[in-house]
């Protein structure tokens, strides 16, 4: 039984306003999506606790507002930490499941930070990317095992092998799936515009394709998830590729729930559901209870798109991911999208977000190795996602075997996100994960698309520098080349699974 409408757990942050500099413009008060500020005769902390989204601080013309951690000293205890106590109190008050957003925030080891890249010295020259070509173009999709060539009537060699449909991207970085509903139309449009500008892909997530984004369908991966929201013939046929979403790194084995209050007419129309109705994505696809069922859906989608679009499968990285991925490839998937346990979400049970799944570094290494052992690595590309934070993470993922990476949280940060982890509340002051018009209209796609594109350009340039230092001038020469990585402070078991030697070996 819920005992209180409002939790007694104190907020973690508090705003400190320097009133001597404040000009009382109230921009901060009006900007706050959480009603965490109010104006009486001056700006004061408001009804709700501050979440540290920093919309107010970043928009204050006088820079006179700061956000501090609220002092709340407790007797020190490493096991019963304040955070742990607060969770228990919240559940004692509500009897419910605690929700969180973004990715796993627990201090698990980030293996990317224990892997170091190689560089050339003396015996082979490094290459200057400003002087020499440096190629990042990537093709995602099924490749043949071999190429057959025939001689044409003019005596010239001609391609005999039929090549399966490919996704050609200018850089091995794409945007992760984030549905309309989990993020706003302005946010989705920003990513779509950035993807088109750079020559890469964005991903509709499982919420359908809004009619305003039809111009960006040709660079969109469209998802077909367990709720089948927004899936129709045109949606599949106008896409760059179709993705069957089985799972998500932040909540493996868990479905989704977009509350009815977020289902506006835009979202209802796009998802093809009534306005205001809850949009429930079941935990499993109710027509996929086995690998042979997945094969049927893969081929149903290939039939629907006349074998002109790659069909990929997105899964969460779980313990037996190597065997699962092998089955998925044998079932006909053209790419496998691996989402690690640090991957983001609009909403997930905290207990699942923080405790289920495995690191994507491990999952990627296991899947790449398994597909090679099975002799089917060429049959599908691997996309790696779930906390790719920098171009260094991209390079390390490629060296472990990824064809490309997908970025979600990093992309949202370019749109203004400050990782306050309140996406599930629908109050995002930045207008990214909210559906409230007064909040979403402040996100200007023409500006934010440039910033998202800038990030891709910046990382792409950095990747070229990394490749140049490695002495290779094409990304395929780093892909799966694990001897260009060395581990530090990793256990022998981790190194074995990663297929990487320790530094100095």
């Amino acid at each position, binding site marked *: 039984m819920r005992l209180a409408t409002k939790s007694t757990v104190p907020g973690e942050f508090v705003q400190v306003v320097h009133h001597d500099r404040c000009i009382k413009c109230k921009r901060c008060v009006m900007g706050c999506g959480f009603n965490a500020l109010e104006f009486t005769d001056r700006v004061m902390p408001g009804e709700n606790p501050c979440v540290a989204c920093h919309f107010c601080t970043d928009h204050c013309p006088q820079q006179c507002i700061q956000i501090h951690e609220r002092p709340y000293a407790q007797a020190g205890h490493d096991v019963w930490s304040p955070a742990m106590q607060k969770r228990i109190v919240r559940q004692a008050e509500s009897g419910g499941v605690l929700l969180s957003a973004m990715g796993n925030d627990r201090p698990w080891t980030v293996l990317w930070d224990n892997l170091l890249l190689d560089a*050339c010295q*003396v*015996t*082979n*020259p490094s*290459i200057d990317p400003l002087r*020499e*070509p440096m*190629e990042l*173009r990537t*093709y995602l999709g099924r*490749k*043949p*095992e*071999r*190429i*057959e*060539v025939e001689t*044409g009537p003019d005596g*010239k*060699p*001609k*391609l005999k*092998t039929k*090549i399966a449909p*490919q996704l050609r991207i200018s850089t091995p970085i794409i945007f992760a799936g984030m549905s309309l509903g989990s993020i706003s139309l302005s946010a989705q449009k920003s990513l779509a515009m950035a993807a088109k500008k750079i020559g890469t892909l964005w991903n509709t997530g499982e919420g359908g394709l809004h009619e305003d984004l039809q111009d960006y369908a040709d660079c969109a991966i469209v998802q077909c998830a367990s709720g089948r929201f927004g899936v129709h013939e045109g949606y599949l046929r106008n896409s760059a590729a179709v993705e069957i979403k089985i799972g998500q790194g932040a909540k493996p084995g868990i479905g989704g729930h977009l509350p009815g209050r977020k289902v506006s007419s835009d979202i209802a129309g796009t998802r093809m559901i009534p306005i205001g109705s809850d949009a429930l994505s079941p935990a499993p696809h109710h027509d996929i209870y086995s690998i042979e069922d997945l094969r049927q859906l893969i081929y149903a989608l290939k039939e629907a798109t006349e074998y002109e679009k790659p069909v990929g499968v997105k899964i969460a990285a779980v313990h037996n991911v190597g065997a699962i991925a092998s089955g998925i490839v044998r079932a006909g998937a053209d790419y496998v999208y691996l989402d690690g346990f640090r991957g983001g979400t609009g909403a997930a049970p905290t207990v699942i977000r923080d405790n289920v799944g495995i690191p994507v570094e491990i999952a990627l290494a296991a899947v790449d190795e398994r597909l*090679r052992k099975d*002799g089917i*690595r*060429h049959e599908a590309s691997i996309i790696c996602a779930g906390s790719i934070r920098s171009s260094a993470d991209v390079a390390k993922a490629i060296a472990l075997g990824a064809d490309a990476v997908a970025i979600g949280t990093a992309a949202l940060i370019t749109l203004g996100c400050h990782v306050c982890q309140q996406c599930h509340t629908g109050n995002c002051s930045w207008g990214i994960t909210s559906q409230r018009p007064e909040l979403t209209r402040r996100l200007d796609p023409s500006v934010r698309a440039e910033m998202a594109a800038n990030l891709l350009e910046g990382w792409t340039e950095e990747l070229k520098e990394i490749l140049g230092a*490695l*002495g*290779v*001038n*094409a990304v*395929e*020469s*780093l*892909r*799966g*080349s*694990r*001897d*260009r990585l060395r581990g530090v402070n990793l256990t022998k078991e981790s190194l074995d699974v990663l297929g990487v*030697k320790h530094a100095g*070996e």
Partner: protein
Amino acid sequence: MRHRWDWSKEISGCGLAGLISRRGRKVSGEVPIRAIANLHDRGNGLGGGFAGYGIYPDYADHYALHTMYYSDQAQDLTEDLLRGHFSIAHSEFIPTRPTEGIGDAPNLWRYFATPRSTRSETEGEADTVMKTVMRVNDEIEGAYIFSSGKNMGAFKAVGFAEDIGRFYRLEEYEGYIWTAHGRFPTNTQAWWGGAHPFCLLDYSVVHNGEISSYGINRRYLEQFDYKCTLQTDTEVMVYLLDLLIRRHGLSIEMACEVLAPPFWKTIDRPDMDPEEAELLEALRITYAPATVNGPFAILFGHSRGLVGFNDRIKLRPMVAAEKDDMLFISSEEAAIHIMCESPDRVWTPQAGHPVIGWLDESVTS
């Protein structure tokens, strides 16, 4: 299996020299010895070797298996295996002479043999030879088959290349293709198996450079049952050529497009023939893991000719020359003038474009 030489990758700089008589005129092994002696300073005495084609006319239809043994047991195990799968027409010590500068040699033995039967209907003679070479090199400790083609042979050791040539008495051999290699490994551990050429069946490769894509090339080859046991980057080159040409049926020119693919900006050029662009794109995306990246100049010998080939931005030197039916290729022009006093034409081949000398069909048939 761990060997005392089991480091992950041997890196080296080197000197190369090679020649072919397109009409199949035989040239004494003395010629490549003198050429590579001229490039003495490109090696450091830690390895060298030669490959000659047309050198075994008496056993031209047999696979010449050149083998090095580090123990009697290794030899016994290998010979048991060979006797199980091959008819051996003749076997003998590879003739050598004591030579200053050449240290303790493993037992060097050669067999002229033919596979007795293949293991399945789809497996050809060459597959049996390849599998036997992989099995011996991987599974029998201290035994290495370092040359396995017909009417050709590789000769390699630790030392300066010209001393190695004398050690193997190469002046007593005559061939219509020769390649030679003097080695400058930057890792001081050197062993006989790690010297060039690297060979499988009729294919031999001598290489100057370092393969920066070794890791993925090796992992790619493992999917096709190639085992990189010699732990030297050049090894992947000869296996890739065998995979692409013999097993996947690509032409030598096509295989070169795979190893050093044209840049995308070349494939994208508006004046590129669309069908050619389609083929090049398909080759690049299918064989991306077979792209050999990093500096290299190689001489690739095979039963139909000799190929000289550079990486696509030419990070290692290579010079070619012609005189009548002869083609000469070397790291430096000086070595060419040792092999041929007054060539008709001397040129520097373009990066990523092979120079191919074909034997006349009358020689190969």
